[in-house]
């Protein structure tokens, strides 16, 4: 579809949605810290949407930081790399927070490691060019991004190179840099914008070159004025536009960002690409810069450990494959009234059963809620109040989809467009009867016979 014909006025917001307390002040002013190298990491071979990687290394083999340890031939996939220097141990299996069982490559750390400030300098510090980027050709950028194993860092972890690859059938005119970070508690993207704006800008310029976008828009929610200011300053001399969007959940959802920032409606079951846009999380952008300019793989990421259930909320630069438990220990441990440990933010995150689960490329944070924070009311009967309908950003009728899923009525589920649901959780958040709507819908989507499920859509928070 031609993108110019799809132009509507962009209002800086989308209809419906909810306004949870953002609770960002817990960690917003804590500068990014580098976590000391752990004794061991377990790097999952599947950290993205797509095909699982095959391990390239054997037990007892020596690897160095950034060395490729897993690769796949599939188109939609991304290689994985050693995130510390050390010795490979026997491969094992881990259960990721979303319930998936994946093979991992454990690495035992050597004594010699790049760590502390030197590591921060290497990953985010130093100078990032904003001019003269034409020496990197689009194909070279795409290849570098693929080789570096970069996937969307906002949550869904879609391989980034697939989005950047020039597609003649679907020309791209806009690159949207997603700095919304709409999940409560999380502040990692915010800190990154404050502390490494140049890397983000450099990555955005490169990404725009690769996908052929003519304009770059940085989308930031208006509850982060200092991030807006910093990005404006960093963007000076380039023709990047910084656009402040209304603070609202789920503004960081890809489709909501596109709608709010450039006024285009991404078709159901489609991608922003279908309306001429590529959306890229700010963290992903910094990773692109590093991959292209410094030829370094994605081995570390910034994430937030926050919530009232953790003693010292922090923003951390961590090696991928470190366990959640180690992050909790580093942040002072759990408080006595901690009630729920969540991988990601409290709206879309999954509770962690075991704390030795490894962090992946898509992990945006770790939220620990207290007993007072979590929802407690018992489930009662649906009172048909329609509040779930009033808040759904996609205009779906959650009450009916949940009902259909409960009764296995797939015809009803289809009539109410169950597969369009992105599981953002707004509906369950407001439901006065405390019905676990998202869980029911998710169950319905999984159990619905494939014949009537055309395509599964998920919310990519910033991807």
């Amino acid at each position, binding site marked *: 579809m031609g993108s110019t014909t799809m132009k509507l006025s962009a209002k800086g917001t989308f209809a419906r949605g909810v306004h949870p307390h953002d609770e960002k002040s817990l960690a917003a002013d804590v500068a990014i810290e580098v976590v000391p190298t752990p004794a061991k990491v377990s790097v999952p071979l599947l950290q993205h949407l797509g095909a699982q990687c095959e391990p390239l290394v054997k037990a007892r083999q020596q690897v160095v930081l950034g060395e490729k340890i897993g690769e796949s031939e599939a188109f939609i996939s991304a290689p994985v790399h050693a995130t510390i220097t050390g010795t490979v141990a026997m491969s094992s299996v881990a259960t990721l927070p979303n319930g998936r069982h994946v093979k991992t490559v454990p690495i035992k750390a050597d004594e010699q490691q790049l760590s502390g400030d030197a590591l921060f300098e290497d990953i985010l510090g130093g100078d990032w060019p904003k001019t003269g980027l034409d020496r990197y050709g689009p194909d070279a950028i795409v290849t570098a991004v693929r080789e570096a194993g970069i996937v969307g860092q906002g949550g869904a972890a879609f391989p980034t190179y697939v989005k950047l690859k020039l597609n003649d059938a679907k020309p791209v005119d806009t690159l949207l840099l997603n700095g919304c970070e709409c999940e409560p508690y999380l502040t990692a993207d915010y800190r990154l914008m404050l502390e490494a704006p140049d890397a983000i800008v450099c990555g955005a310029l490169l990404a725009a070159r690769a996908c052929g976008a003519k304009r770059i828009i940085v989308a930031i929610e208006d509850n982060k004025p200092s991030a807006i200011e910093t990005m404006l300053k960093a963007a000076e001399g380039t023709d990047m536009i910084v656009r402040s969007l209304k603070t609202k959940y789920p503004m960081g959802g890809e*489709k909501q960002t596109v709608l709010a920032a450039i006024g285009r409606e991404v078709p159901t079951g489609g991608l922003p690409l279908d309306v001429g846009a590529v959306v890229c999380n700010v963290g992903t952008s910094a990773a692109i810069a590093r991959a292209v300019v410094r030829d370094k793989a994605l081995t570390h990421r910034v994430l937030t450990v926050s919530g009232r259930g953790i003693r010292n909320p922090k923003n951390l630069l961590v090696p991928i494959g470190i366990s959640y438990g180690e992050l909790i220990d580093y942040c002072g441990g759990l408080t006595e009234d901690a009630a729920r440990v969540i991988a990601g933010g409290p709206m879309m995150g999954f509770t962690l059963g075991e704390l030795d689960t490894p962090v992946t490329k898509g992990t945006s944070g770790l939220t620990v809620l207290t007993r007072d924070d979590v929802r407690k009311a018992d489930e009662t009967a649906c009172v048909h109040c329609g509040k779930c309908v009033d808040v759904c950003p996609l205009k779906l009728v959650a009450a009916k989809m949940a009902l259909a899923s409960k009764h296995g009525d797939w015809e009803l589920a289809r009539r109410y467009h169950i597969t369009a649901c992105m599981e953002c959780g707004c509906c369950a958040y407001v439901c006065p009867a405390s019905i676990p709507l998202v869980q029911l819908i998710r169950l319905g989507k999984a159990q619905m016979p494939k014949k009537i499920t055309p395509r599964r859509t998920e919310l990519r928070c910033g991807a």
Partner: protein
Amino acid sequence: MTQETVNNDATETEAPVTHVAPGPHLGGGCLTARWMMLDVLIGLLPVLLVSLWVFGWYAARVLAICVGSCVVAEGIFTAMRRRQCRLGDFSAVVTGVILAFSLPGTAPWYVAVIGSFAAIGIGKLAFGGLGQNIFNPAMVGRAFVMIAFTSAMAAGGYVASEKAGVPDALTQATPMTALQQEGKVASLGDLFWGDTNGSLGETSAFACLLGGLYLLIRRTAAWQIPLGVLLAVGIIAGGQNLMDLQAKWTVGHHLMGGALLFGALFIATDPVTSPLTGRGRWIFGLGIGAIVMLLRSLSAYPEGVMFAVLLMNAVVPLINRWTVPRPVGGPVPSKA
């Protein structure tokens, strides 16, 4: 997809105990169902005060009987069905109050009791309890006694038989009857403040608007429904006024008289028996308004609102079907 749910207060152990539960993990996004019912009661307060002022202890009596009977009925019926009693959600109280407000102050005690049992038994629990019922329970009870005790509920039943010691209001005919039978037109001021005869809750437009506004602001009631009702009535009555400039009842009379505001704000907005989507609520509201006007013009029943609500209740499942919203981004493409 972990299914284990939380919520045992028995976790008084020393170490923090964490649970696995489905997201979203934050609460407090909205009122609970119980709070919504409490809200309705709060919204009904102004109506209650006015009806006590106008009808004195006649109002108190009917109210007490209805609320008491509804609560008892809920208790008995749920016990009979071996269900856990859900009195805690206040819905029986709400039903009782709304039923009482739609009865005349002179209603005999057995009418109030039977109406209440019909409301809870037939109107709600026969359908499977709160959330499953198709018809507004209070209106089912009202319709039941209307048919069973025609004389007590007919126009004459609103006027107290003895003359001494009854509130003024009870000695007059209701404004609608007065119009139909004697051609007398109530003053708009009386309709607004509530100094007329009528069902206990319907007389004062002012009280209904005040309480209704509270519900709308709290978003306990969906705004599209009352607006739809008022719009339909306003347009149709306005049209009638224009065609017949001598009409005795003006738009103002139609909007403020005959339980219209009470029905639009408190009865039609019952979430359980109204549509889910915004568009559906518009259709629902407009439909009620149109039926009310139809009944007022063509039938001798002053209870147009009750029938209109019940009729539109019946088509709610259909309305829901017709108004499945188009998802943002269009319907899911089918890969045929």
